[in-house]
């Protein structure tokens, strides 16, 4: 079982890779909408990327209003 810290790290690494940013350039508290400047289609892409990586389903409404990686990782952790 992953710890929340591990999950958060994997989320950050996945986001950095997906949006072609240097590893370590994202922090748990970052607002990903502001930091990545992503639109609705890219949000769905990221959701797919996370679900495929963690092997979970993360309903959109559970992450609605979530904008930082730390909270996102917590939502993922609750589904693992």
């Amino acid at each position, binding site marked *: 079982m992953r710890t929340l810290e591990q999950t958060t790290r994997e989320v950050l690494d996945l986001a950095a890779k997906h949006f072609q940013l240097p590893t370590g350039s994202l922090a748990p508290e970052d607002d990903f909408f502001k930091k990545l400047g*992503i639109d*609705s289609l*890219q949000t769905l892409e990221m*959701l*797919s990327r996370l679900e495929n990586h963690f092997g979970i389903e993360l309903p*959109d409404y559970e992450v609605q209003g979530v904008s930082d990686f730390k909270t996102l990782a917590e939502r993922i952790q609750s589904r693992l």
Partner: protein
Amino acid sequence: MKSFTGKTLRWEWHEGCIELTLDHAPANEIGTAMLAELEKFVAAFDSLASETTACIISSARKSVFSAGGDLRELYRQAASVPEKDRPKGIRSFLEHIHAVINAIDSAPFVTIAAVHGACLGGGLELALACDIIIADKMARFAFPELRLGFIPGFGGIPRLKRDLGNAVVRDLLFTGRTINATRAHTVGLVAQLAGEGEALAIARSTAAQAAKYDPVARAAAKEFMKPIPHEELRCEIEIFCELFTRPEVMAALKKFVEDSGPMPYLP
């Protein structure tokens, strides 16, 4: 017409397979422009059917198969006419799009949707008309219409119910959530999963396989196993038009077209 390039889509016939490519910025929204070109597309079936074994529908847009009906156009058009005249315009649009999707549904060759990215609302309804859906593992599917106060209007509920049953329809409809390709494959919506960027290649190899079978038997099998739910489709149009007259719908459409948030498909 063996090839066509329009403003929203293009198609090309090659060795028995028609490839229809949706290419309408930003997200292949299905409005009056795409509807007119889809009507040209299905009109070409008469001349192409006898020498066609398969048809593949895919998207040239990044990250999206189709975001569905053009809600911005729908709002503009509805807002430009008196309230009492709104159902007339939307009914006419629905009648035309139903005719197109019914023609794709009943085409006498194998139809394949090669889906990548977002496949939402009317986009999913277009894919559902196809015999086989092949999805990139990054594809996502949803019926987000209830957030606007109406139901899917391009035949989505009757077709999803026909193919998968009511439980899946209810989950998608009552949550508005998007489901990923793996989930869609598990419930039977997606026939084959493809790696990232591989849906079209797999659709082509599937089309080549389908081409090996006897066309008369194939057409008979399709007619037998894929009846068009005409009565429910008529009901759908009636329910849609009835719901559409409510002020809540215009308010929701206005909110949607003005929303620049990351999840505009959720209320």
